[in-house]
């Protein structure tokens, strides 16, 4: 969120003013809108235009917490939400650490998260962008069809206020285009279809690179045509930047302060120890304006900040919100997350990245004798257990032999454990890509991973 005095602040303030003696009250108020255009075969398939708003209220009294929300800002509904949150307090267990965040004096790094150009962008031009992208993606390779082409934007403003002195409001907007492709080859029983996708994100449509989005969608769909299932073996994997970003997302859950204080992180007792290859320096930095998820403030209204989590392979710290920090005997790292008005703050990395190396993906591959360039991972939610560290996902990509990429493979899994994979990182690529996720990507080389196939 970019600092901006929203009229929603007054709504939040009015709730907090109703706090009774001994009560801590926090109100989070949000309002937003979205536009979504889907184009298929030159026509608009659907066009969605909508607004929504709501409020979430948290009440803490004598160590017990209650919460309620409603998807409306009508006065009577707000009164009902406050009453429900108060009623819910009695059912919580007394928790000596339960308390709202307090201002910590860390200055806010201002971010440019609101773009006036996007706010005024004409609707017809948004539709045209999706049509252009569909045309670009369908015109380059006769094997490729477009499944759908999309334009989407969203804008939101929010305000938070609390009896502990938090008072913050802001707004942001953003947009993206995306395209899904299908590539066909063969006839009858040999007929085969593979899929691809491409996207481009921006603070305004002026930042889009439609050509790159179309090219990547075509490449992703066609490069796996003719893929077969190879025999199982142990090898070195080179992860594509997009795949690395997904991998870092899994790693981040083990560095979550809430998982640590509740004994669910496999790194809970390892601060100061070597948990990764010396090449690994992992930083969460939402103040970096290049990050897609850059933000001024976290979900509790504290300043977002740069935190080094792993430094040269050594675990330095976890990320915390005010609750997990209090339990861990430390201070918030500005990592409260909030999914909207319907929930209370959690803990999480906000904009994670490895410090990149220097070499390109081609140079990394040139050093691999026997490996797999992983271009797709499937099933990260089902085959990875961040508590035990067991890691197993579906994968597709290209085999690497003696430094060059060769045949495409599909229907394989790659498996190891998170603990081993971090230690087995051989090189971090220099090809950093700020993707529309909470993690940035770059090529990453990990040795001794099991590929399961036929």
């Amino acid at each position: 969120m970019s600092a901006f005095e929203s009229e929603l602040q007054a709504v939040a303030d009015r709730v907090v003013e109703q706090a009774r003696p001994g009560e801590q009250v926090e109100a989070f108020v949000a309002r937003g809108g979205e536009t979504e255009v889907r184009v298929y075969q030159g026509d608009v398939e659907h066009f969605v235009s909508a607004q929504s708003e709501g409020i979430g209220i948290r009440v803490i009294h004598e160590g017990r917490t209650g919460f309620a929300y409603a998807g409306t800002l009508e006065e009577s509904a707000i009164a009902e939400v406050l009453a429900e949150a108060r009623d819910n307090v009695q059912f919580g267990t007394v928790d000596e650490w339960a308390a709202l965040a307090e201002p910590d004096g860390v200055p806010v790094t201002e971010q440019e998260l609101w773009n006036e150009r996007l706010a005024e962008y004409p609707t017809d031009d948004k539709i045209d962008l999706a049509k252009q992208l569909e045309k670009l993606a369908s015109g380059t390779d006769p094997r490729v069809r477009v499944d759908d082409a999309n334009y989407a934007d969203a804008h939101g403003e929010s305000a938070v206020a609390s009896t502990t002195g938090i008072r913050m409001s802001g707004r942001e907007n953003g947009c993206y285009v995306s395209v899904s492709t299908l590539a066909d080859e063969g006839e009858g029983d040999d007929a085969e279809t593979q899929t691809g996708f491409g996207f481009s994100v921006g603070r305004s449509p002026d930042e889009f690179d439609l050509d790159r989005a179309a090219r990547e969608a075509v490449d992703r769909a066609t490069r796996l045509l003719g893929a077969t299932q190879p025999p199982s073996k142990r090898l070195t994997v080179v992860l594509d930047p997009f795949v690395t970003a997904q991998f870092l997302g899994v790693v981040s859950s083990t560095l979550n302060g809430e998982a640590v204080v509740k004994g669910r992180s496999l790194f809970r007792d390892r601060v100061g120890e070597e948990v990764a290859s010396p090449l690994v320096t992992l930083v969460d930095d939402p103040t970096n304006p290049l990050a897609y998820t850059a933000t001024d403030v976290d979900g509790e209204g504290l300043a977002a900040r740069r935190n080094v989590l792993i430094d040269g392979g050594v675990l330095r710290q976890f990320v915390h919100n005010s609750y997990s920090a209090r339990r861990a005997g430390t201070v918030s790292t500005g990592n409260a997350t909030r999914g909207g008005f319907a929930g209370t703050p959690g803990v999480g990395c906000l904009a994670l990245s490895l410090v990149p190396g220097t070499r390109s993906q081609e140079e990394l591959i040139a050093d691999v004798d026997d490996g797999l360039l992983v271009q797709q991972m499937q099933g990260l939610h089902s085959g990875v257990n961040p508590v035990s560290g067991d890691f197993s996902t579906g994968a597709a990509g290209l085999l690497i032999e003696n430094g060059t990429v060769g045949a495409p493979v599909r229907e394989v899994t790659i498996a190891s454990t998170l603990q081993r994979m971090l230690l087995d990182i051989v090189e971090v690529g220099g090809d950093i890509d700020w993707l529309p996720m909470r993690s940035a990507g770059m090529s990453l080389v990990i040795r001794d991973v099991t590929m399961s196939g036929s």
Partner: protein
Amino acid sequence: MIERDVLERVLAGAVRGGADFAEVYAEDKRSTSAGLDDGRVEQVTSGRDRGAGVRVVAGETTGFAYTSDLSEPGLAAAAAAAATAAKQGGGGVRTVALTPSAPHRPNTVQQDPDTIAKAMKVELLQRMNDAARSHGPEIVQVSAGYGDSRKQVLVANTDGVLTDDEVVRTLLRVSAVADGDTGMQTGYQSMGHTIGFEVFDTVDVEELAREAARQAITKLRARPAPSGTMPVVIEHGTGGVLFHEACGHGLEADHIHKGASVYAGKVGQQVASPLVTLVDDGTMPGEWGTLGFDDEGHVTQRNVLIEDGVLTDYMWDYLRARKDGRPQSGNGRRQSYQHLPMVRMTNTFVLDGPDDPADIVSSTPHGVYVAKLGGGSVNTASGDFVFGMTEAYLIENGEITEPLRDGNLIGNGPKVLADIDMLGDDFAMGSPGTCGKDGQGVPVGDGQPTLRVKSLTVGGTSS
């Protein structure tokens, strides 16, 4: 929720510019949830979501807008926005006359969760916490969650359809962490039904918690899962997700229309082992994917998708059925009033086969026995799908032996369906699921008897 004459005027206004079709979907949902973690009831949450989505279809184009304002001006504004978005040409005045559908309530709710004291809901969590922790000293952490909701749904459209439905949901989940020399392991159980609090008259919540604890403790002595292709036996009531991914999504008519499914053009053809009869049924009393009407106001029904291995039909929503000039199948669903409907599954399951489950294991010399599956995902165009195993064992010489660590299995839909070579006679429904598609999650159920896939790739690390 909204008067009939208001709906008629809003719908007539939405098609005044010449659109083919307009629809109002309104919902009013109240929910309660409670979470226990680390021995504490962290918080009870009350939620209220209320609003309407208006859809206007003109030719191939759909315009959609939603609002949390259910007054006539609020609905009219959303209808105008949706109509503008659909950009229809032409014009002309149409009147809309709505005819209420006869009620269809597959579920009988005896104890509306709104009438149950919150303290009783919280008490369930404490009982699960105590049961899991007392199951063994290895259990170091327990988290438990309770959730209920009561959602009133109203659908009205320019074809004259007017339905109202009420869906009550009750959900319980528990996860346990065990710690030992080999590190930490996890166990998870859940139950969910579309009925009220009376579900706890029959469900043993302590047993659910002990089961999660047992799973976590068992895995402390698990060895790495094997790597490679082998026979896989899947226990009844856990492997429905296999069919959900291997063919369910591929039988959704939106994927078929865009040629993005391996099952396109295959009706009447053998697509699975002759043992397989696959059904999607939104009317099963109390099941997680059950509804009276789908989210387009079409009555839910039982649809046979594959019969004795032969593909009989796909699943349909309003738009796809209209395009093909055929009836809808009650599979038009959406996450909430803020979402467009699309083709979705309800309760998807495979009917009983001829085999004794014990024979399935004893006739497998070497393979993997999966006692509990996790989630999965599929690429409908290529047919490749994965699903996770969260409790599995090695099969050696026809016997279930050592436990295995978590991992994914990977396969190709049509190949795996053809490779089902044994099917048990012990059908059971599985745990409640949330199916994700195009950014929307909807509740679904699944089920199957014990079965064997003669060849599936197991994604472990042990050769």
